[in-house]
């Protein structure tokens, strides 16, 4: 019985491979990505469209569930020489890959395969995160986002606030009035959101997280968070938390900050613009909301926020034919139709000026449910500063985890802010020095 079953399974599998590859001449290559659920299905649609649009190449798209898994599996595969041609790597994994000599720079790939891409067309804030310090783009920007703040407009109206708060002191004022008006949870806060509450704060205020332009000009950068404006900001967050104006919401507490917002329990939250679409779908009956650029401290000039999300890297060790396929795929992604389709079905933003202009001209941003997403692009294209190119720090996932712990220890265990951030810097420096030693003799591109 069992052998019969195995036999038929084997036959079915063989039959499937024959059916699945009608054009035997097409060059197959793999693309691994770290998204799941709805987003994964959209990528499968994208791959299908690409395969149907031409007959020379066949892309095989494999979901690895999440960014971390995809990074780990890609590394394991690369070490066993079984790597995919294209892989999607998130911001915190960028530097290791950059120093690894395991990839083909996207600019070189496109040139060698005869594609002319206008690299200046990419938003500076997007391109700089994935470029060398001299501005050469190493990976293909793919799913890009940035942080936004979301307000419940009914709650704003109820406390009589005209327009949208643009500074943190206005947020404090609004939150206090909301509390007085009987809202239990004015602002939903999750320390795990260090990306929006800490990193993006540093970016738009052009505050350094580390020296040397956040590590862009050398592996010997040092952490300087405890010497900057974030000390005041975290002190303020602690004050707001103690007054019950910021309320802790997380997966562990039973409800995430975003869920609390769409359910109308909390009136303000901060999250990625990629959640704009999700909020639109999930917002409870009667919950009206809007998004805005992150608030500023009084008296600061706004700079560009960091791009979030991930980019596509082409890995070494593949055949020339496979590289041709990868280049064709990138070229396909850069077409205006694909750019618009991808931004429409996901919350991610277009990454090129022309793509954005075309969508704007077509009236994409004029009405719900897409109205408001243009603010993310506005935020990304603000004037650049020394500390707004991105974060080029080694083992950054560990440093980010340390920041989450730091915020938690200030909020929950009353550790003094200055002391907590000094410890954070010290810890971060240890991680950076270790990283520097691991890559001894290598230089940043």
């Amino acid at each position, binding site marked *: 019985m069992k052998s019969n079953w195995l036999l038929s399974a084997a036959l079915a599998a063989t039959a499937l491979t024959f059916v699945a590859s009608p054009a035997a001449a097409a060059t197959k290559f793999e693309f691994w990505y770290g998204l799941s659920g709805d987003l994964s299905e959209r990528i499968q649609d994208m791959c299908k469209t690409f395969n149907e649009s031409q007959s020379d190449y066949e892309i095989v798209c494999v979901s690895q569930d999440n960014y*971390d898994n995809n990074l780990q599996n890609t*590394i394991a595969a*690369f070490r066993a020489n079984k790597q995919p041609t294209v892989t999607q790597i998130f911001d915190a994994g960028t530097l*290791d890959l950059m120093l*690894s*000599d395991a990839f083909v720079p996207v600019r070189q790939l496109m040139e060698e395969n005869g594609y002319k891409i206008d690299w200046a067309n990419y938003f500076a804030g997007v391109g700089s995160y994935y470029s060398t310090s001299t501005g050469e783009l190493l990976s293909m920007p793919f799913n890009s986002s940035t942080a936004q703040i979301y307000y419940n407009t009914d709650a704003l109206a109820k406390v009589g606030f005209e327009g949208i708060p643009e500074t943190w002191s206005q947020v404090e004022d609004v939150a206090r009035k909301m509390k007085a008006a009987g809202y239990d949870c004015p602002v939903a806060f999750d320390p795990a959101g260090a990306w929006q509450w800490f990193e993006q704060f540093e970016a738009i205020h052009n505050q350094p997280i580390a020296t040397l332009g956040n590590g862009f000009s050398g592996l010997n950068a040092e952490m300087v968070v405890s010497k900057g404006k974030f000390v005041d900001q975290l002190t303020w967050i602690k004050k707001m938390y103690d007054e019950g104006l910021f309320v*802790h919401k997380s997966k562990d507490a039973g409800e995430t900050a975003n869920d609390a917002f769409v359910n109308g329990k909390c009136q303000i939250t901060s999250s990625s613009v990629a959640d704009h679409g999700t909020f639109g779908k999930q917002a409870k009956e009667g919950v009206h909301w809007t998004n805005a650029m992150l608030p500023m401290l009084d008296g600061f000039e706004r700079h560009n926020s960091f791009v979030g999300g991930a980019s596509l890297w082409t890995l070494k060790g593949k055949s020339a034919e496979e590289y041709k396929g990868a280049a064709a795929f990138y070229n396909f992604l850069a077409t205006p139709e694909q750019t618009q389709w991808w931004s429409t079905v996901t919350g991610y933003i277009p990454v090129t000026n022309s793509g954005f202009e075309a969508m704007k001209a077509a009236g994409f941003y004029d009405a719900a449910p897409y109205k408001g997403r243009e603010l993310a692009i506005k935020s990304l294209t603000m004037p650049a500063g020394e500390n707004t190119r991105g974060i080029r720090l080694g083992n950054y996932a560990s440093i980010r985890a340390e920041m989450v712990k730091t915020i*938690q220890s200030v909020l929950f265990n009353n550790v003094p802010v200055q002391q907590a951030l000094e410890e954070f810097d010290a810890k971060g420096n240890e991680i950076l020095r*270790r990283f520097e*030693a691991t890559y001894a003799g290598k230089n940043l591109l």
Partner: protein
Amino acid sequence: MERRAYYRNGWMPWLLLAPQLILVLVFFYWPTTQALYWAFSLEQPWGGGNTWVGFDNFLAIFRDREYWGTVLRSAFYAIVSTGLSMAVALTLAAFVDRSLKGTRIFQSIYVWPYAIAAPAAGVAFRFIFAPESGLIGSVNQIWPGIWDPATNGIHALAMVIVCHAWLGIGYNFIFFLAALQMIPRSISEAGAMDGARPFQRLIDLQLPLIAPTAFFLLIMNLISSFTDSFGLIDVMTEGGPIGQTEVMVYKIYFDGFKGLDYSGAAAQSIVLMLLVIGLTFVQFKWVERRVHYN
């Protein structure tokens, strides 16, 4: 006379052993050697290079205050979860052994938790203990803020330990019950005739007689709490809040797979391995002497 079977040709036993040997070599010794090598060098995650650094990785983790925190936390976790799990299992087994009403049903029911995978149990317990919505969380409606594993590290650690202990109860129970039922009835009955109450018979008669089983379970539970706690913690707390549920095995995972510090993680796993080996050795050397097998 002892009877023995001999193989005429020398390679036959090796051939029969081969599948097992290959498995052990490939899945245990080979990765361990790799980890050992990484622990003494700095390994680049993408495999671009490797520099020998001697004991630097070990010195770095021993200098780290947070690392010692995870060591102490692991020890606490091991002792409390083992103690809790074995005590509850023994109590249940003692009751079932006394053939109280409904014993047959309980005998099967108590084993069930062991069949549940740790991450699945973790998800269930996370909901039960969630401060805002869970079953246990409802105490917050009577006394606000009394239970909050999301912000209070002690609560979070207690939650994980309780879940771990609960998962082990079934396994411990079955072993204890089997051991209790192996004891000849006459011994217990003799004790009863001399006027010993059930509790006293448990302490004075049954416990010493099941000591080998208890010893075996002690080792198994301690080792399991050092290594199997990962699945639970990853699902329930991810080491938080403020890293207060970060045990040794979780830190290894985080530093290695998320932080991409392969060498630091390798050094930590070597330390953990030595610790588990040492613990087992100590137990066999000293604790076992006090256990009588006959």
